């Protein structure tokens, strides 16, 4: 026992490279951290960006046509919008899963892993549906 504990340095603090490359995060951890990242991205810059588009499109007919045909025609804008759609859909799905966990549904290892995968898949599927709409 003494020799075993001497070999490993404890406690082990996980650095970012360790989290990314050394250990494999379980799916629930992936859903959790992407829930946070997508939430932060939705706050900034996406909320500001959408308010800008809402502002311009409601301001005048020229503004509406500009956003609809010119602005949303740019590839970079479309890619940005695609990232927004993913962040929104993923955050929404992960949030619904979280609400069920709050009331003690699906908290066991097996269902938690299954719903974790479902959230990732549903986020991507919804992104495809709405993405097809803008493309």
């Amino acid at each position, binding site marked *: 026992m003494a020799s075993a504990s001497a070999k490993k340095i404890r406690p082990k603090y996980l650095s970012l490279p360790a989290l990314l490359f050394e250990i494999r995060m379980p799916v629930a951890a992936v859903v959790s951290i992407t829930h*946070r990242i997508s*939430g*932060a991205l*939705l*706050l*900034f810059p996406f*909320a*500001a960006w959408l*308010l800008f588009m*809402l*502002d311009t*499109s*409601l*301001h005048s*007919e020229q503004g*509406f*046509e500009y956003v*609809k045909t010119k602005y949303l025609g740019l590839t970079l804008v479309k890619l940005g919008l695609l990232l927004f759609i993913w962040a*929104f859909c993923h955050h*929404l799905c992960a*949030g*619904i899963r979280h*609400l069920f966990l*709050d009331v003690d549904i699906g908290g066991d290892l097996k269902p938690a892993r299954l719903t974790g995968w479902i959230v990732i898949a549903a986020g991507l599927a919804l992104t495809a*549906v*709405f993405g097809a*709409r803008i493309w």
Partner: protein
Amino acid sequence: MKRLVVGAHYGLRDWLAQRVTAVIMALYTVIMAGVFLSNAPFTYSAWKALFAQGWMRVATLLFAVSLAWHAWVGMRDILMDYVKPDGLRLLLRIGVLLLLAAYVGWTIQILWR
């Protein structure tokens, strides 16, 4: 012996607020998803008419206020977990508050112009 550990209840209040606001925003999302997925032609007059209705303006304002409260709780959690220096954390929290206030103000300006 009964002992009150905390007196402010802000933990439960924020936890609950984050979830209630989440449901409000999810319901609004259903409305907007319906608008974007419907096959009705997407024109300026239809877009303008949608946001001219009283209930839509109130719903959108409710969404903006919900977003502000929801994001405040979420960002507070994130900053508490990852930003350790007190001064920097305070600065970022103030930044988040100002940003959220600006969003709500901008939304009101867009809706009631």
